[in-house]
């Protein structure tokens, strides 16, 4: 489906009246179904605000937000989210943490009681995909940062959301773990093909993972550039060091420094 996510000249001003900060202005962009899109931009450009607008957590001050052909007028229930902070619940084991969405989203919520075993089975399969199968019964504090982030990705995907929103999910990890998780994320995406919007400030990450990269301007944020990344899938880490990717990273970097100096 073309334009699964469609933002049309969206503006968002925090606070009431006309006094709050203008976070987004005249922002338009589209994401097709099953497409992997990355959004990059200078810090404070409103990337996280964009996430909240798309998922319906914040209503836009102006403009229209459509997801799946419908106007967004309340929080969507088809979304999975993961953040820089893994935000696992410390009183739950890994498996029970990743099954949290199933306790909320219908139809899983009503079926969970009878089908707990089969749901748990699919939860374990997901953990296996990210290499956490031996840690299902562990508590978050028993996991390393990278493992917690894997679990957080699983939690975002367990209910098979149509839309996956990732807000700098790997920003707090060391480079090796980060690259490892890029591959994990690619694998998850290839296996399930959700529509992904990844917000990041890591340009290599954006180029390696996404089909398309949007560049945002400084606050108030709007889209100032768009690049297609035509690399074959599944991609390998080495590709991110090849001329095509390196050049694109340089080009994106220039866009961003231009956006920063424009302030």
């Amino acid at each position, binding site marked *: 489906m073309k334009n699964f996510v469609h933002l049309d000249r969206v503006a968002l001003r925090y606070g009431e009246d006309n006094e709050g900060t203008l976070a987004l202005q005249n922002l338009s962009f589209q994401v097709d179904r099953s497409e992997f899109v990355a959004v990059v931009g200078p810090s404070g450009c409103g990337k996280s605000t964009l996430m909240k607008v798309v998922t319906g957590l914040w209503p836009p001050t102006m403009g229209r937000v459509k997801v799946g052909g419908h106007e967004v007028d309340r929080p969507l229930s088809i*979304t999975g989210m993961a953040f820089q902070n893994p935000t696992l619940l410390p009183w739950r084991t890994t498996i029970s943490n990743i099954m949290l969405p199933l306790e909320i989203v219908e139809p899983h919520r009503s079926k969970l009681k009878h089908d707990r075993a089969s749901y748990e089975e699919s939860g374990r399969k997901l953990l296996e995909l990210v290499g956490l199968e031996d840690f299902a019964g562990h508590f978050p504090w028993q996991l390393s940062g990278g493992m917690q982030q894997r679990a957080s990705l699983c939690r975002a995907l367990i209910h098979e959301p149509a839309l996956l929103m990732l807000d700098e999910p790997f920003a707090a990890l060391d480079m090796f773990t980060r690259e490892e998780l890029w591959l994990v994320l690619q694998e998850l995406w290839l296996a399930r093909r959700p529509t992904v919007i990844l917000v990041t400030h890591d340009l290599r990450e954006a180029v390696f993972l996404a089909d398309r990269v949007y560049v945002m301007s400084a606050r108030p944020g709007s889209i100032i550039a768009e690049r297609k990344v035509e690399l074959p899938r599944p991609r390998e880490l080495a590709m991110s060091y090849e001329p095509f990717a390196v050049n694109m990273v340089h080009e994106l970097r220039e866009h961003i420094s231009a956006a920063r100096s424009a302030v």
Partner: protein
Amino acid sequence: MTEALVPIARINWRRKITRHKVFRRVLPWLVIFAIFALWQLFVMAFDIEEFVLPAPTAIFAAAWQWHLPILDNAWQTFMTTAIGFLFAILFGLLAGVAIGSSSLVYDGFYPALVGFNAIPKVAVVPILVIWFGIGTVPAVITAFLLSFFPILVNVAAGIATVEPELQDVLRALGASRWQVIRKIGLPRSMPYFFASLKVAITVAFVGSIVAETVAGNKGIGNLMLVASSRFEVPLAFAGLLMTSVMGIAMYAIASAIERKMTGWATRGTDGGTFVPAG
């Protein structure tokens, strides 16, 4: 050669740790015993009159002599404390959830609650006597009034400080406000809640005894009042001893429940298993 030495050193090291642990267990008892011993020496050395400061031996003798009335009154105090405390848990939890989960309720009610909490509860007891007469009811209410607030504040704090990102995760799944409270807010506030129980049970106990002293016809507080008015100071001290034993017991129960219920929040500090993560 060194290879042969290492295990022995390690065994000694282990033994040292075990010995250290045993010492840690015994230490509180040693401290209590030392306090009583010093007290006894002090009274004997300065030849202090019994009605000023009785020696521990005299206190224990009085406690033994009067053990039936002491136990009877202690039971009364325990019951009033327990009833007041249970009400405090019930209302503290409900009000804490309401105040913690809604900024409107918080803004509206919190100042009034703080003002109410600032009133010394001893001053309320005479009013309670006018309303309910002398006896059990004012003691139960005083226990409730004192222990209600710490529970409320802690539960509210636990619920109000849920990470906004975590709320977003749930809300982006279409979770209702109540679901967010039930799945995250309540479990998250449990360590706060159980920690507050330790404080609350102790102040509830103080509340009962104060009310019994001011307006009781039974209970440890009343027993101490009667004893001191008759100059039976060792008995009054025996009553004090009883209250402190009961206080320790209740605190121990509350903290045992806390450890059982919210072990995830105090991992590692009390023998929780540690699994190194890679």
